Every structure is written in structure tokens, then in C-alpha cells.
């Protein structure tokens, strides 16, 4: 089950049957989906010489009738309207329309109506409606997804569009994989139930013809879980490469924006971290920070060795060899610079924000028990000047999640301290979190301290000292 080749295949098929110079027209979301798996040089090889977005005002631009247009859009009503305008004043010789999800019949009728000049040669549904970041990891890039935490009555259309997008994305993943899964959802969560039911209705009733694939021996399972059942994991500081970059700097569609950092060289202000194109990254994606540092050092040493050996020119042969290997050399140089810049930025931030200490306390809050010690640790870190605001907020949240019921007085003390220390984050946020994901709302036994056996085990374990760095592991329950 590898996602990236699926989307690449779809795009290949879009472009291969059409000969001549092409222009690729995308919408703001499909731009992200396509750029993650396909590079500009790949497009050039397929004779796509221009990429535009659907929003560009088409009427004012000159017509380029020597190009053929390939549209790859999401089937939303916005896009259909924009497409109508494009079709009524066509700029290109031909139009080939590809939609990333299931089209509704009225939309096809609208398009047929506006295609007076008959430039549309084909309309196809190619189900690539998700952003495949890594071989086993995709995202739908829904930006306002906090909306699912609010009760439905607050914003029914917003909630509906969120659910629709989620269902569409899931459906397209399974259509691309050509499987129809068995669906299971978390009983206690309304959102999970809604999404699971709508997906099941889509797959088994509405479009059952489309989803009718050959049954394989091990059928797939779609598990719909609500994040509120484990609010602890997103709050912890991460120490593996990809997770750490995302935590400290932020990765979007495999792009990292380093513009705000001072010491970054000019050509590394925005970099790409992709497991497919970058071998070093693929090997080190899940390595922890210490091992990562060693690997980066080894890479730099190798590169220095290589560059030194290629600098002594003894004869024309050496020069010729250097020139012929120059593109490779330049690529390696860029790669090494990129990783060195990233790792140095991250270690600088770790130093500044005292993340080692903070993370240790976080891990203790998440795994070990001992309420008094935890309270002491959190208070001292809150008092520490170099700890950043967001880390303080996180610590208080973690404490609140763990020791919600045990001593409300101390919790209030922490709230007050947080409010006094950081202007941006008020204690209202922590209370909102408790309301959404507090002990009453969670189903599973997150901290392993509910039933008698676990309580006994924890008491016994409290007597010996555990020195692992990151004992926290993610909870997925059967």
C-alpha cells in the first residue's frame, strides 16, 4: 500500500495520451497534491510547459491556441463555476477535464451547457483527492479542522463541509487502492460515527457499482478514531527527525520555510524534505536526535572528503571527470547544506528553549506517576525565563490532563501562574481542553491507572527508578 506511486500514475495517465505542448491548470488544493509527488522537471519531460491556477482571470489573458489545456480540479461548486467562465471564452485549443473525485450529475449538465465551442475533449474522474506526503502517510490539508470539536449546532454548514471533505478524501484513497474496506468507528465520538456512517453509505449504497472490487484474502479495515481520546501525544515535544522539524519549524506539503531564521544561507530559505527524492532523509526520518546528529556529521565528513579529492586536478582526465560529475556534486552539496542548516537550527532552538528539560518533565507527566513531584517540576519550569510560552502552556495542559481530579487547588495555582507569565495564552485554553478531552470524555485507559491491576502495578513500579528517555508510546487500542 504505497500512496505516492498511485498519484504519480494518475498524473502520468492524464498527460501521456495527449500529444503536443500542454498547459496544466490546477486549483489551490490540487496544486499541493500534485507538487508533493511530481516535480517541475518531470512535467517538462511530459511537455507540460505552463502551470496555472484556475483562479487566474482568464478573460484578460491572450489566447494561446497552440497549447492544449489539461484541467485537474476538485469537483467543488466553486471550481465548476470558474470552469464555466473558462469554457465560455476558451483560450486553448482543447480542454481535457480531470476531476479528483466523484462528479454529480447536475455538475456535468452545467459543464455541458457552458461548452458552446466544444473544446472539451474528455471528462474523467481520477481519484487522487489526497496529499500523499510519505509512502504510508497522507493528509487532506483541512485547515479549519478544529471545527469538529465544537458542537454541531454552532456551525452546521461548516461541520457538513468538513465531514464531506473527510468522506471524499477517504473514498478517493480507497478508490485509488481499489479496495472496499470494513469500517469500524469509535463508539463514543459523534463525529467519528457520522463520518463512518456517511462513508459506509457512499461505499455500499450510493456508489456501490464504483466500489465493487475483487475481494482479496485480507480485506482492508478503515478505523475512524477521534483524536480527543488521546490528547497527550500531540502535546509532547518530539525527538525524531521529521516529527521534530514539524514541531519546531513546521512542514507543509513537504516544504520547510526557513525564512524567519537568521543564519540560513540564501539558497536554503525554503527547502524540500521528501522521502522519495532525498535518500538521507529517507534513512533518517525516524531516527532520534542523537543518532541524527552523528549521521549528519558522517555525511558532512564524506562530502568534505569527496570535494577535497576532486579538487586536485592532475590531468585533463581529472578535469573531464570532475566536469562530468559536476551535477551530482552540486546536488550532494545542496543536500548536505540543507540538512546541516536544519539540524543546526533545531539544536539552537533546543538550547534556547531548554527543550531537553521540558521534554523530560513532559515525559514524566505522561508516563510516570507522582503528583507532588510533577507539580514541583511544572512550577519550577513555569518560573524559568527561557522556557517559551507555548511550552509553558503545554506543561500546564499535560498536568491538567493527568491530575485533573486529584488536586484542584494546585491546578488553580498553576492556572494563575500561567496567566501571570504569558500574555498570549490564558487558562481558558486549558479549560477548553479539559472540557473536550478530559477524563470523562475519554474512553480508554490512557494513563493505565484505572483498573485495580494497573493501579497495583503502578504502585510497584513507582518504587524503582526508570531512566529511559522517552518511555511514552502511542496508544492504539484494539
Amino acid at each position, binding site marked *: 500500500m504505497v500512496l505516492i506511486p498511485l498519484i504519480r500514475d494518475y498524473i502520468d495517465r492524464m498527460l501521456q*495520451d495527449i500529444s503536443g505542448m500542454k498547459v496544466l491548470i490546477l486549483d489551490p488544493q490540487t496544486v499541493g497534491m500534485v507538487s508533493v509527488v511530481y516535480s517541475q522537471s518531470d512535467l*517538462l519531460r511530459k511537455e507540460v510547459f505552463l502551470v496555472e*491556477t484556475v483562479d487566474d482571470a482568464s478573460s484578460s489573458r491572450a489566447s494561446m491556441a*497552440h497549447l492544449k489545456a489539461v484541467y485537474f480540479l476538485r469537483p467543488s461548486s466553486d471550481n465548476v463555476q470558474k470552469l464555466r467562465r473558462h469554457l465560455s471564452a476558451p483560450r486553448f485549443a482543447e480542454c*481535457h477535464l480531470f476531476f479528483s473525485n466523484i462528479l454529480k450529475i447536475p455538475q*456535468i449538465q452545467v459543464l455541458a451547457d457552458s461548452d458552446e465551442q466544444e473544446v472539451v475533449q474528455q471528462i*474523467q474522474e481520477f*481519484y487522487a483527492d489526497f496529499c500523499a506526503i510519505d509512502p504510508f502517510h497522507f493528509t487532506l490539508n483541512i485547515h479549519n479542522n478544529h471545527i469538529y470539536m465544537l458542537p454541531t449546532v454552532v456551525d452546521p454548514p461548516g461541520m457538513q463541509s468538513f465531514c464531506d471533505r473527510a468522506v471524499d478524501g477517504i473514498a478517493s484513497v480507497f478508490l485509488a487502492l481499489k479496495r472496499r474496506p470494513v469500517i469500524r468507528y469509535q463508539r463514543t465520538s459523534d463525529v467519528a460515527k457520522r463520518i463512518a456512517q456517511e462513508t459506509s453509505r457512499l461505499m455500499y449504497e450510493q456508489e456501490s457499482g464504483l466500489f465493487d472490487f475483487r475481494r482479496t484474502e485480507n480485506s482492508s479495515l478503515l478505523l475512524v478514531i477521534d483524536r480527543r481520546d488521546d490528547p497527550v501525544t500531540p502535546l509532547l515535544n518530539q525527538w525524531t527527525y521529521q516529527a521534530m522539524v514539524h514541531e519546531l519549524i513546521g512542514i507543509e506539503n513537504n*516544504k520547510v520555510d526557513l525564512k524567519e531564521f537568521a543564519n540560513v544561507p540564501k539558497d536554503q530559505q525554503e527547502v*524540500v524534505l521528501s522521502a522519495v527524492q532525498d535518500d538521507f532523509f529517507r534513512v533518517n526520518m525516524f531516527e532520534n536526535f542523537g543518532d541524527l546528529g552523528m549521521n549528519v556529521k558522517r555525511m558532512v565528513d564524506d562530502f568534505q572528503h569527496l570535494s577535497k579529492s576532486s579538487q586536485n586536478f592532475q590531468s585533463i582526465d581529472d578535469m573531464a571527470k570532475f566536469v562530468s560529475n559536476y551535477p551530482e556534486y552540486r546536488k550532494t552539496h545542496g543536500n548536505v547544506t540543507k540538512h546541516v542548516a536544519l539540524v543546526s537550527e533545531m539544536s539552537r532552538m533546543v538550547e534556547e528553549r531548554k527543550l531537553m528539560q521540558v521534554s523530560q518533565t513532559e515525559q514524566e507527566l505522561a508516563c510516570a506517576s507522582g503528583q507532588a513531584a510533577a507539580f514541583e517540576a511544572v512550577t519550577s519550569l513555569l518560573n524559568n525565563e527561557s522556557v517559551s510560552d507555548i511550552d509553558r502552556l503545554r506543561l500546564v495542559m499535560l498536568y491538567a490532563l493527568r491530575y485533573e481530579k486529584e488536586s484542584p487547588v494546585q491546578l488553580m495555582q498553576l492556572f494563575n501562574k500561567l496567566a501571570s507569565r504569558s500574555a498570549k495564552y490564558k487558562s481558558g485554553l486549558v479549560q477548553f481542553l479539559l472540557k473536550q478531552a478530559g477524563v470523562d470524555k475519554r474512553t480508554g485507559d490512557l494513563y493505565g491507572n484505572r483498573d485495580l491491576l494497573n493501579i497495583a502495578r503502578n504502585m510497584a513500579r513507582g518504587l524503582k527508578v526508570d531512566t529511559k528517555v522517552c518511555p511514552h508510546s502511542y496508544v492504539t487500542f484494539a
Partner: protein
Amino acid sequence: MATRNRTPLFRKYRDALRHVRAPAGAPSASSSSSSPGGGPAVVEMASLLRPDRNYAPLSTDERSLLCSRGAATVGLPPAWVDVSEEISANMQRAKTKMAELAKAHAKALMPSFGDGRDDQRAIEILTHEITDLLKRSEKKLQKLSMKDSSEDSNVRKNVQRSLATDLQTLSMEFRKKQSTYLKQLRQQKEGQDGVDLEMNMNGSKSTFELEDDEFEDVGFTEVQMSKLKKSEAFTREREREIEQVAQSVNELAQIMKDLSVLVIDQGTIVDRIDYNVQNVAASVEEGYKQLQKAERTQKKGGMVMCATVLVILIFILIILLVLKKILF
């Protein structure tokens, strides 16, 4: 991977709506197949592109169905498209010549009884031709970037990039072939001489083994002198060839250096589609702002004022002239 073809449905609606809109609707020559991802009818604009252009892989499904619909806007492509096609044609020719060159190299390297001078000359000619073609393509490529028309500058830049990538791969291939030929030549030369000398040594030893030492010395020198002279001439010729090949290698290295500026590095941010799309939007906005500023400065400029004043003056003088004629 699942796909669904909605073209038949679309065509049905389109025809139905067209009949509603204008009763005399022309029948559409639809030949759609309903296989997922199957080839639809492709209107091949014969005037635009040569059918044998294959420096990008074409699918086997390509049909050239000439539909007799009144194609509304059959625009002629702009002039630079011709230049780009010339470049790609040159590269095709260079590719075929390189295949020939490979064969000629192989033939020249085979041990032969003749002098092999024809082979060398053929190789020289071919090498010169290929280097010439590549240099010309490169010059044309540079010319492509000079002309500045705003409308499809993006398309032009991308065409240039893709041609530059192909040209670079071609030159690298050419250079590799040349360097392997060089290496094999050198090996052969050394090998030949080494073998020659060795054999002669052994030969002389065995023949003159039974003679005295003095006699051995004299005979060895005479036989060897002639052999040495021949191999010297041979060596000189080979040296000349190697020099020529080295020279063309240098020329190509020059081309490669120029080209490497144009080619995109794979895996960097410049290779990302969304980055390029954003940049286009940003630069279009910038250009728009500059235009507005220019408009404003022009309006404010003294030139407009002067011109208006002069025009008014002209009118006044004409009126005065007319009055003078009337009154006198």
C-alpha cells in the same frame, strides 16, 4: 487504480443542450471508448507540430483523427516555437549521428590488418559534425532566452529548460563515449607496443640463444630499430588522434558549464510546482504594480503639460491667422 470516464454522459448532455439551443445541430463525430483512461478523439492540428517529434515519449494510443468541426480558434504558434523545433530536430540528428559514431568507434578499435586511416577520418568527421550540431543548438537556445515577449514568457522559459536538460544529457553521453574510446585507444596502443616488444624480446632470445653474446647484441639492435621506428610513427599518429579527441572533450566541457546554469537541480525548492506557481503570481503582481507606478509618473510628468500647452498655442495661432485673412 480506479477511474471513471464521464465523457459519453457529457457528450450526451452537450448534444441535447445544443439541439435545444440551436435546432440545426451538426452531428458530432464521437468515437469514445468507455475503457477507463482510454484514448478519446484527439484533434491533431497538423499545422502545428511535426508528427515525428519524439524527444518526449509519445503513447502508442495516438490517433490522428481529423475532425471537421469548425475549430474556432486555430491560432498559429508564435515564432519561438519554430526555433525550439529546430533545436529539437538538431538534437535528433545528433542522436542518430552518435549511434553511427559508436559503430565507427567499435570498428576502429577492432584489430585490423590495414592502416585503419579511413576509419579514423570517418570518426573525426562524425565527431566534428556532432560537436557542431551541439554548439549550434546551444547558441539557438541562448537566443531563445533573449527575445522578450511578455505573454508566454513562462512557457518559453519552461521549453528552454527542458531543451537544456536534454541537451545536457546528450553532451554527457557524447563525452562518455569519447572518453571510453580514448581509454581503449590508449590501452590498445600500450598493449600493442608492450606485446610487440615482449614478443620481440622473446623471439630474439629464442633465435639467438645458441649464438655468442656479441652476435646476439648486434642482431637484436638491427631488428629492433626498424620495429621501433614503425611503432614510433604509430605512436605519433595515435597521439595526434588522442589530442583531437581531448580537444573536443574540452569544447564539450565548455558547453556543459554554460548549460548547467539553465538546468534545474532536482529535489530543490525550484523544482516544485507550487513554488513556481506562487512565483509567477508574485511576479505578475509586481509587474502590475510597476506598470501602475510608471503610469502615474508619466501622467505627472512635465511632458504632458508641455504638449498640451503647445497644442493650445497652435490652435490660438491658427485662429489668429484666420482672423487676419478675414479682416484684411
